[in-house]
């Protein structure tokens, strides 16, 4: 991948100058190959008419196959492939030869050779199975010199052509026919044509080694929170008008939703995009629409994505909205108590009073996702004179509800795809870094830790140095045994996994006179905890294991600063 990338840059620069040249060269080679092995030239005439259209059509096909949208990036270079095809048109010739001297075994051999050669050369596009590749190699290996001659220039013109056209001639004789190392990695994960969903699944999950490149994000500077928001402000959404229009379309449904509310249904909005703005507008609409002649309706808005949100607080707020000043001073600590208070309060309200409208954003967000919470919400929804509108963002949200909960919710669902980004709902930078196993970004990575350490007393710095030393040595040990770790060793396994036992660290700390008592040790650790400089978890045996949310590079950097500073 890397090679190709660097090459593509080069190619873009001089593509005009270089490609025709190469083409000529390869043409010459084709002729040479032909002349070299074709014992009876007269037949070529007959074949040429057959071959020509094939030669023309194959590049087209290759184009069709490889014309992914990535073409511009230079990840794929279709020109080479089409060349390879037209080059490889030669092996068809023996067919005519064979026709002249028909021995069955030879015939079979030839066709096997032909097939295997095709398999080897087409592996890029077709993503052939490993088995066929190996077989193809074997067949070609015990081939005679003729095939060697045939195979060699062709492979080289593809592979070397892709790599470095100049060094081709010197390298060519050394390489055996077949694919060069790493060529297998280039098998495209995108299957040919339109596969049905299940076929695609099996295609993408087939057995075999992982066929992705070894590039990591180490060289790419990741975003900080500040930079993220700063850059986001610069971005102009090309679909802004369309999204506005989409929102306006949903707007038209407001009377319908209100009617559904009137008829005792609750509403669930789903589809891609943040629906917070839509909900807010609906609240505005309900307020203005209802508020003309009668009491203003009580509307409670819940942001389900808020980390610390509790069901009890939701119920309590609704109760406040309904009861106003009549709210009893003590609500009770259990959510059910508050709910029952609310229910009985609603029962005693005069009939003409407006029902209370509860709008819940992201009801399927992690804080509310638990089954117990959903069951409580369902009971709220089933309460007469409570209207519940909720939005769900994830694709599989109906799985949260079992049959009785669903029955209580009494939902009508509407697709309200908005395409708005989930700006408020998710902490984007945090989430992405968690996904990439770089949690420590939150405190500003290496710099942040260093900054905090500077403000801490000597003892704490020593403890952190000790912790890092231990972790790094654990990681080193781990590498020797861990097969899966990449050879470059920069990434290592996820830093989350590496940890040191609490007891062990305490022991070492006392040995180095950093902490004299466990109490003191814990105080020091707490400081780290507060700054999110360490992580702690319980391992399988129930031991507390301490870790540092930094990548190995960063750990080493911090350690260096600590030792030198």
């Amino acid at each position, binding site marked *: 991948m890397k090679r190709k990338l660097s090459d593509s840059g080069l190619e873009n620069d001089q593509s005009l100058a270089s490609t025709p040249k190469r083409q000529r060269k390869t043409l010459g080679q084709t002729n040479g190959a032909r002349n070299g092995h074709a014992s009876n030239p007269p037949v070529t005439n007959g074949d040429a008419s057959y071959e020509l259209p094939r030669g023309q059509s194959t590049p087209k096909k290759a184009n069709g196959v490889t014309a992914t949208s990535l073409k511009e990036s230079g990840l794929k270079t279709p020109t080479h492939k089409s060349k390879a095809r037209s080059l490889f048109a030669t092996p068809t010739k023996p067919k005519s030869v064979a026709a002249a001297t028909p021995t069955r075994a030879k015939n079979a051999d030839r066709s096997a050779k032909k097939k295997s050669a095709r398999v080897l050369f087409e592996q890029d596009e077709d993503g052939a199975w490993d088995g066929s590749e190996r077989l193809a190699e074997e067949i070609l290996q015990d081939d005679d010199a003729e095939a060697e001659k045939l195979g060699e220039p062709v492979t080289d013109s593809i592979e070397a052509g892709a790599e470095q056209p100049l060094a081709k001639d010197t390298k060519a004789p050394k390489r055996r026919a077949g694919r060069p190392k790493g060529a297998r990695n280039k098998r495209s994960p995108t299957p040919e044509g339109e596969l049905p969903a299940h076929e695609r699944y099996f295609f993408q999950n087939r057995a075999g080694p992982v*066929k992705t490149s070894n590039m990591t994000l180490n060289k790419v500077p990741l975003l900080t929170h500040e930079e993220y928001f700063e850059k986001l402000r610069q971005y102009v959404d090309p679909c802004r008008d369309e999204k506005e229009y989409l929102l306006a379309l949903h707007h038209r449904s407001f009377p319908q939703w209100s009617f559904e509310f*009137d008829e005792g249904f609750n509403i669930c909005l789903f589809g*891609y995009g943040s629906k917070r703005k839509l909900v807010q507008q609906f609240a505005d609409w309900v307020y203005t629409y209802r508020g003309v002649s009668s009491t203003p309706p009580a509307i409670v808005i819940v*942001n389900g994505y808020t980390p610390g949100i509790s069901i009890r607080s939701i119920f309590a707020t609704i109760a406040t909205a309904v009861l106003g000043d009549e709210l009893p001073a003590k609500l009770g600590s259990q959510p059910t108590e508050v709910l*029952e208070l609310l229910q009985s309060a609603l029962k005693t309200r005069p009939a003409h009073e407006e029902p209370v409208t509860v709008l819940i954003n992201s009801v399927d967000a992690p804080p509310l996702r638990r089954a117990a919470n959903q069951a409580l919400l369902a009971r709220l929804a089933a309460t007469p004179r409570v209207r519940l509108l909720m939005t769900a963002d994830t694709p599989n949200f109906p799985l949260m509800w079992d049959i009785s909960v669903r029955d209580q919710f009494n939902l009508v*669902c509407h*697709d309200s795809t908005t395409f708005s*980004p989930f700006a408020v709902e998710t902490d984007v930078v945090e989430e992405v870094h968690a996904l*990439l196993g770089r949690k420590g970004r939150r405190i500003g990575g290496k710099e942040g830790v260093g900054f905090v350490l500077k403000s801490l007393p000597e003892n704490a710095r020593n403890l952190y140095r000790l912790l890092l030393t231990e972790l790094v040595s654990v990681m080193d040990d781990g590498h020797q045994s861990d097969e899966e770790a990449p050879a470059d060793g920069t990434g290592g396994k996820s830093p989350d996994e590496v940890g040191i036992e609490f007891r062990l660290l305490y022991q070492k700390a006392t040995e180095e006179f950093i902490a004299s008592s466990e109490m003191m040790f814990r105080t020091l650790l707490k400081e780290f905890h507060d700054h999110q400089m360490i992580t702690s978890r319980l391992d399988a045996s129930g031991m507390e294991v301490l870790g540092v949310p930094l990548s190995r590079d960063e750990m080493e950097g911090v350690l260096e600063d600590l030792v030198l500073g």
Partner: protein
Amino acid sequence: MEIDGFDAEVLESSRDKSQSQGVYIYQPTQQGKGAGERPSKRRKVASTDASEEPKNHQSFAPLLNGDENAECVQLRYDIYKQLWSVQKQKIKGILEDVDAGVLMDVLSFVRNTSPQTYDPILAKEPETSALVTVGSNVSSLSRLLSRLNDQLAATGDGGVVVLESGDAPNLKTTLKNIIRAAVTNTEGNDGYQKFLTDRAGPRLLGYDLDLLHDYVQRKGTKKLVLALRDSEAFDPGLLTDLLSLLRSWLDRIPFTVLLGISTSVELFEGRLPRSCASLLQGRHFEVQEAGNCVDRIYEALQADLTGRLWLGRNITSTLFERSSDFFQSPEAFSRMVKYAYMSHFFANPLAVLLANPASTMLPQLRICEAIRNLPSFRMFCEDLVQAGFSKEVRGLLEDDQYLLQQTSKHLDTNQQKMRRLFQVVLVIHACLQHTQSSKKTSVSDLSIRALSGELGESPIVEEMLATMKTLDSEKLMCLLNSLPRALFNDAHFSAIQHDIQTLLQTYPDSGPLRSEYNTNSSVVKTTVVQQRVRLSKGKAKLPEQDLEYTKIIDRLVAILQEYFAEILVNPQDLFLHELFLFDLRNPLKETFAPRPRFAIERALASPFDYLFSSFDVTEGKISAKQPATAILYQLYLESGALVNVHDLWQAFYAVFESDQGDSCDERVVMTLFYGALSELKAFGVVKNSRKKTDHLAKSAWMGL
């Protein structure tokens, strides 16, 4: 009402604080921020004028491009209310009827078991618990319980305390919930507070059963039913504690425990420790399954003699699909029907005609235009032209007044046709009860066929008529008697019945008459022809009366055939069927069985399905014009089960680079990449992979 873009932005900024708040009371943004008026204050002001008459708001939006006048809108709403309230009443009646059996049983059980029957000397256990197996009919138990509560409360005997597994995290909370629920059931919330505080002696804690004892004594409660709705979900240990505790209080508090069980009694018992299971001395009640109930509801809704609106075959099949495949409760079923009614009147401007409005009220121009655009109107006109009534067609097309007049006339006759259609369905259903031996076809099946116009030629009916021919006179009389009375207004039918009766009277001794089609009256002859046995059926010689009877039967079948052929038309061919037949599958199906995953996948894989785009969209091509998440998702679709983030990022960037050239800011693109990646993570389609550094694992495949 529309908030334009500018306003929305202003609102957005003012709401910054509300984004991070977990839950808050909505404050209208129209008022200045400085006002800071509490909702409670507003409420106070409002409560002074809250006594004015309940406002008459319009739930419906004007249709016909907004040209529909207010009267029509109101009329549509009223006719909806009117029609639905009738249907609702019917459904309620059926549900009550279905529950009645179990309710009576349970009620009498509750009434008759009393702790007084507990005999300490004989140590005979009183039956204090009822096990109610609910099966899939989940909602029936709550129905049952609320009615039980009403019954008990009405007679002053006591009440029902419903407990769910969520209410019972531990024993203390459970007891507290029981006591509070029992007291608030009759006294209300304030009553409970008063009850807690206003008492002599030391203050008791909320979970002290002495409180409940006190309450029972004060109220003279004879029965306190404790119902555990989802018994299986309770912690067995807790259940044991609770039951043994209740058991020890049984001499002071008259508990009866009602356990709702969705699986089976054996399974439930198996989960409990033996000590606990032995505490449960009780009886077992079974609630009827939902399916039966649903069929009855459907029949009542559709085959009503005064019906004005019917559900089409698509909706019917959707409804039954759902209730059979998804364990739908009868309530959910009726809610779907309700939604179908709602959709019809909410969105069909012509539905107003069902109310038989005075033609002066209508915005004639638009209504007539709408009628003329109906597909069924065109069909009707074509038929008229073919039949040679081109003058009449001209009248329909040009004279609004005439059109309206004709419309209301045809609406009436066609509605009548629908009613008769369902009568025939009932007739066939009744006949089938006599002719089908094993598998009985339900009314809903027949209705679906009838509504698609296939019932007349269906094998069911043919088979039925064939079997009918073979029936003897006794069974036939039985069948004829079971047919709806309305049928016998027809002279032919009464004649046939009369004929059979006279025939029976003339030959009183011959036993049941048989027709010649009956297998008993045909003889099988065996002859040997060229050393092969040949079977040949021949008619046995029939007595006179049987031949008479055969004639009558032939007549009956002919009449029935004619009758079916006349009435079993395809409703979709009727003029104005758009008005009285609601048959759009979609709002119903999408609303009650949403496919959120499909929606999200579609939005991301082909965003321009949703975003109506002004620039030309090349099919299936990723471009920077698309939303970032959509781009990333499409790249993700192309990748294998393991995705290298770096390469993904490069590919993502390349999309923008190729589109924008040099003006493309890599960091801006990266922010988009971040946003898109975090969204994919939130959707649960990617997760971190431990196989390789900076790799993601794919966890969802589109279309699977």
